[in-house]
């Protein structure tokens, strides 16, 4: 039925989203899907089985009408066929009364497909509603059983539908956030280098947003490097940190204090005028910080502390640009 690659990613997704048996049961409780509902839904079984192709078509016709959105889904023949097949299976499964992990797996497979095709959740909701409306109309139009019973059966089916919507929307959102999670991870890994720029002098450029997790990584990384490089002075450049609030300032202070415990002096550079003013306005006590205006100044101060003295040679290998 499902190809192995797809079913692998479905199983991975089930784990990542925490869709345990208990979670599935909870989702059922949320939509109040109970035993009497299953019996009522069973009375719709024949109707759905008999018209399954028409109902499937309702869903995809509605998508086709919204020309701008689902092009990716309908544009590719293979994807569209697969989506149609899964939707058809889904409808048949909806009336079958089994909503366990197998059913959830199938929902996720379809959800993943939508997500791959870039289907907007709102568009999905619209099309799914059209489908349900069609099922409802058909159910009420029957002569037997009486309309009231049909209506109750349809409302029970609707609970399953909402159970499904919950899953599909969760998948769509989860997959969309996956990109964000990956990017955050990438930013974290990229942006905490500790560079040795002179004997016993480290440079720690910080770029981007500092949250608690990242502050911890930065500090641990720095402390390890202080030990490994036997560093005495660290220049921490925060030019790339757009905003520093009390939390971030606190992280910086902690890093500085920890470095001091290991015998290293930290010089903070690159506090912009805006940042400095907002820190003062917030009343954050940074008196313990050793600050120098810019990176160049910080490096010079660090070299002074370490006893280096820079001097220009008489014969530079590269002549300085002429100032006009």
């Amino acid at each position, binding site marked *: 039925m499902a190809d192995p690659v797809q079913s692998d990613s479905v199983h991975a997704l089930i784990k990542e989203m925490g869709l345990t048996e208990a979670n599935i049961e909870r989702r059922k409780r949320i939509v109040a899907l109970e035993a009497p509902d299953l019996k009522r839904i069973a009375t719709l079984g024949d109707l759905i089985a008999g018209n399954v192709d028409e109902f499937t078509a309702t869903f995809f016709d509605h998508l086709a009408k919204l020309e701008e959105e689902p092009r990716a889904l309908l544009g590719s023949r293979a994807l569209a066929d697969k989506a149609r097949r899964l939707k058809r299976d889904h409808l048949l499964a909806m009336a079958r009364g089994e909503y366990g992990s197998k059913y959830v797996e199938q929902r996720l497979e379809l959800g993943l497909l939508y997500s791959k095709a870039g289907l907007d959740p709102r568009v999905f909701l619209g099309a799914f509603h059209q489908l349900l409306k069609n099922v409802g109309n058909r159910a009420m139009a029957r002569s037997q059983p009486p309309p009231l019973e049909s209506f109750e059966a349809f409302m029970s089916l609707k609970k399953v539908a909402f159970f499904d919507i919950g899953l599909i929307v969760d998948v769509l959102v989860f997959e969309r956030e996956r990109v964000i999670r990956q990017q955050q991870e990438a930013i974290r890994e990229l942006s905490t280098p500790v560079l040795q720029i002179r004997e016993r002098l480290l440079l720690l450029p910080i770029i981007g947003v500092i949250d608690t997790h990242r502050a*911890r990584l930065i*500090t*641990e990384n720095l*402390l*390890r490097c*202080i*030990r490994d490089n*036997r*560093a*005495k002075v660290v220049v921490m450049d925060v030019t790339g940190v757009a905003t520093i609030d009390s939390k971030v300032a606190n992280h910086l202070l*902690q*890093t500085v*204090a*920890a*470095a*001091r*415990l*290991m*015998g*290293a*002096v930290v010089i903070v550079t690159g506090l912009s005028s805006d940042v400095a003013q907002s820190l003062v306005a917030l009343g954050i006590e940074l008196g*313990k910080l*050793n600050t120098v205006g810019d990176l160049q100044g910080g490096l010079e101060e660090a070299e002074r*502390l370490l006893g280096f003295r820079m001097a220009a040679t008489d014969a530079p290998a590269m002549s300085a640009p002429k100032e006009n």
Partner: protein
Amino acid sequence: MAVPILKQGDFLIASIQAALSDHDLVQLRDELSERVGRWRCRGLVIDVTALDVLDSFATRTVRGIAQTAKLRGAETVIVGIQPDVAFTMVQLGLTFDDVETALDLEEGLALLRRIVRGSFRRAH
């Protein structure tokens, strides 16, 4: 267990080799304070390289040692605080604000020499 206290010129070196009980710490404090006076030391290095935890009592005692030694005429430097220990201490708010720290024994001794010579100006 007892902490070996070595004399090296004008300096004393106390190298803590294993986790100390509170009692051991108090004993170390008394012993160091006594020897600083007896040997007329100018500096004291406490090496904690082997420790993987420094709790609040240990921190307070070590600070106490430093203040006592200062009153008896010797400067104190703590050396060898490990990265994990440093991080944990900072999180607990134990920052040894009034005690000098250095990376290792070599650095500690160099720092002491500078302090004693009076030529070292604290960076902050």
